[in-house]
């Protein structure tokens, strides 16, 4: 109410915003009785008072428990679904990966990437994780895969039966048939997609010492010249 009066915003809007951030039933309760997540939502509600088209949030999930993080995540998603552009600055890359569609990565003040999340994830190729019944089978499969030009390597210690192969899930069927033809039984086969964190380290390593690099993503897809790092847009989520 204080901020609404200060901003010349109709006081009816306060109830609308409180409802929007899930505090409609607690609107008259004292602030000191709010949990950290509720306080965070109240802060976001204050930013929503003038009905912005663009919402800029700095570390919105900082210090929250998993339940609170999930609430904030769902709320930001709903804002984007309603047509609002949400700019989130965060160091929690796993959170960013879950809620954002477009990214701006800044390291030590330098813009090193801007574009779609999938585009950044593609910076690190997906891998097939394969586990065989025995070490011998694993070694044999490694030779087979390498012989047809696929990059692969053993994972873990000397007794390991796990292989990582540079390929996506579309090659999983071929791999399975290849193994079966040579009498190798696979006990595990899955695709491991790179996380945003891994992709981040990949591009920061490759960009070390270089000048600013931008992806070929549309200019409007993640425009920023400041420290904001990710953007949830009104467009549908991949």
């Amino acid at each position: 109410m204080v901020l609404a009066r200060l901003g010349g915003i109709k006081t009816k809007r306060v109830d609308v915003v409180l409802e929007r951030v899930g505090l409609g039933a607690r609107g008259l309760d004292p602030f000191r009785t709010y949990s950290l997540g509720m306080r965070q939502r109240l802060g976001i509600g204050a930013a929503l008072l003038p009905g912005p088209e663009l919402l800029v949030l700095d570390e919105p999930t900082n210090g929250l428990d998993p339940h609170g993080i999930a609430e904030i995540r769902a709320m930001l998603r709903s804002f984007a679904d309603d047509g609002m552009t949400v700019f989130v600055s965060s160091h929690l890359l796993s959170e960013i990966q879950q809620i954002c569609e477009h990214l701006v990565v800044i390291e030590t003040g330098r813009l090193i990437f801007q574009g779609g999340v999938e585009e950044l994830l593609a910076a690190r190729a997906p891998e097939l994780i394969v586990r065989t019944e025995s070490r011998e089978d694993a070694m044999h499969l490694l030779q087979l895969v390498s012989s047809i030009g696929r990059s692969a390597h053993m994972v873990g210690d000397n007794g390991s039966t796990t292989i990582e192969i540079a390929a996506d899930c579309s090659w999983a069927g071929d791999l399975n048939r290849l193994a079966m033809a040579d009498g190798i039984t696979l006990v595990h086969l899955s695709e491991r997609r790179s996380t945003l964190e891994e992709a981040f380290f990949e591009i920061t390593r490759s960009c070390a010492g270089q000048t600013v690099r931008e992806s070929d993503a549309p200019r409007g897809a993640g425009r920023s010249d400041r420290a904001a790092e990710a953007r949830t847009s009104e467009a549908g989520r991949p």
Partner: protein
Amino acid sequence: MIWRSFESEWVKMRRRRLWYGSYGAITAVVVLTTIVTIAGALHHPDARGDLTLAQLAHASGLSQGLTQSGVLLGAVSFSIAAFQFGGEFAQGTLRNLLVRQPRRSVLMAGKCLAVLTFLIGAVVVATMVAICAAFVMAHLRGIPTSEWTSGTGMGDLGILLGDLAISACGFAIIGMIAGVLLRSSVIAIAAGLAVLLPVETILTDAIPGTARWLPAQLLEAIAQGGSATAPFGAALMTVSAYVLGAVVIAMLVFARRDVTA
């Protein structure tokens, strides 16, 4: 713009705890002083020239008790204002306010006006209650009150009410400045009261003539309608100069200093 800031500050000041606490404290101070003054009045004049029952029966008798409440009223006003301003820094709410109203001078002016109107209201309420208490005490001590309700008596009371309000506002403005400069309500109240009450009193006793220059002494003189050492007009002029200078400094500091809380 200032009106919005004024309105928004009043939203906070309408909180029951602040309302009852502030109005209760100010009323208690004024009523208590009035009761003690009338209760302590002598039947016959003494060598020290203390207040007598006969003097209280005059038209200005009703104002006598209220007059003595200037310093205590000032201390409470100072504390409320310092709390309202210093608390914004300490609680981290100032940043939110500045998001809605980035023009800091406008925000400060609106808040200042709101606090002053809040205190003037408190002084008026306290005076009304103290008048009732004064009539009860007069009845108990057998003081005739017909002169109190005369035109002269009411005129004196009106002037006194104005003087008390000016004095309370002066203390409040100093409190706001302390809150803005020290950025903490606790530090502002502790440091401010220490300087305005004991330190000034010691200086006044130790160095003759300093009462004409020290802000709390001048504001006390204003509350009493002027004193021998600080006539009303001179006290008002000096305090106005102090307040103006301090407000300019506080505005500049508030406008330029980074808000980190």
